[in-house]
């Protein structure tokens, strides 16, 4: 039965998205942890591990394409779901790249103590990873309520990012020799801020599957509205 085959395939794909998500979550957590503890080996492992994430992404994309091709016609919700899976897989892979970037920074800065104790950055990572975890869970379950509630938490991450930015700029003004390393830290924070944005995209996709409309999260209203 074509319907059963499609349902089975969708189930497999969603499972694999959860797998990719946990790979990415681990990468972020580990990269930030390694940065904080100056663990060179861990940073290197995360850096190398990005290959696996990329491979997983391509395998998943292929699986989705093959599913679309072989279970025609694909209509309505199924179509929106599979198209959104493609998108979400891409978002996860890019978050994986952010982890790789942070790991790279970890490698570069492991030889000297950090310019300031890392408190806000790990906090950003914690919040962002938690957001990601819930967002992907909502996506796989197609839970609109949960997905709608997550984007507003991006504000917390943004606030922390601003804090880190201000702190580092102050330090750079006081102590120009550390500009280089401070910059690296800013990059790491920036990656985490971008990660939270991507999580918002994933939530928008969840809403798209359920409602058929692609709305954008508007940070001013804390709500999702149609794009201009």
């Amino acid at each position: 039965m074509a319907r059963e085959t499609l349902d089975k395939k969708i189930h497999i794909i969603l499972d694999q998205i959860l797998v990719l998500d946990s790979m990415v979550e681990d990468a972020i957590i580990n990269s930030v942890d390694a940065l904080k503890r100056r663990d060179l080996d861990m940073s290197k492992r995360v850096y190398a591990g990005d290959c696996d994430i990329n491979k997983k992404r391509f395998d998943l994309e292929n699986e989705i394409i093959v599913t679309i091709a072989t279970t025609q016609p694909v209509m309505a919700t199924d179509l929106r779901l599979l198209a959104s899976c493609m998108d979400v897989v891409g978002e996860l892979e890019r978050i994986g790249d952010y982890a790789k970037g942070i790991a790279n920074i970890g490698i570069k800065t492991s030889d000297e103590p950090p310019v300031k104790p890392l408190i806000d950055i790990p906090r950003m990572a914690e919040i962002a990873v938690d957001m990601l975890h819930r967002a992907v869970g909502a996506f796989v379950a197609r839970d609109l309520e949960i997905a709608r509630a997550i984007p507003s938490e991006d504000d917390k991450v943004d606030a922390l990012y601003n804090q880190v930015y201000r702190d580092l700029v102050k330090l750079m003004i006081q102590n120009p020799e550390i500009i280089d390393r401070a910059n690296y830290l800013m990059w790491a924070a920036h990656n985490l801020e971008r990660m939270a944005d991507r999580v918002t995209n994933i939530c928008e996709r969840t809403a798209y599957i359920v409602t058929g409309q692609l709305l954008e999260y508007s940070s001013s209203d804390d709500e999702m509205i149609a794009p201009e």
Partner: protein
Amino acid sequence: MNQNGKEIKINVKDFNFYYGKFQALRDINMDIPKNKITSIIGPSGCGKSTFLRSFNRMNDLIPNVNVKGEVTMESENIFEMDVVALRQRVGMVFQRPNPFPKSIFDNVAYGPRAAGLRDKTVVEELVERSLKQAAIWDEVKDDLNKSGLALSGGQQQRLCIARALAVEPEVILMDEPASALDPISTLRIEELIRILAENYTIVIVTHNMQQAARASDYSAFFNMAEDRAGYLVEFGETVKIFTNPTNQLTEDYITGRFG
């Protein structure tokens, strides 16, 4: 008639159809837009063909048929029109190609001649033009005296389309026009329909959803109620129906959950 900026060719109001005591269609309300392709989809037995055949009153051939409600084509009630005149304005292409056992020329000239056209030159021009419109002229121009039955399935169907066009109708009804054909011929027919829609209003019944999605501008989803009467579930732009339908039943049908 204008509605939301699109012109309406045929308006169906509170249309009910009975075969004797059995109700085949219930309370259909629909507008067929002018010069667009409207497809009618739905599970077997939901009355799609019955509905289509009402537009050119082919159902009159069936005994004990009863109709309630109105079907008007640009303000004229089709049930009050002369049926022969109606059929000259509303043509039909059938599921199985049915060329007459005559030459290709005589097949296409049949309709105009039956309508009284005698001038040989005009008939010849009309035949050539219709065969060109049906995208089959190049394949048959060298021997128009060949029997219509000697053509391949896809060619026969295009011949039938040419035959219908020769009468210069305003509306063309197609009852699963490609279901008896191979995939390549099917695509050719769909392309042809696309081109014809520039000048004619086209209504297609199809059980092939991909064909409806590919080849139509508007789609009407019919379903069968428990008492086996057909009713209209949803009507809208094809793109919307197939990517984000409003009615859950529509969604279930097009994603293969029933039918």
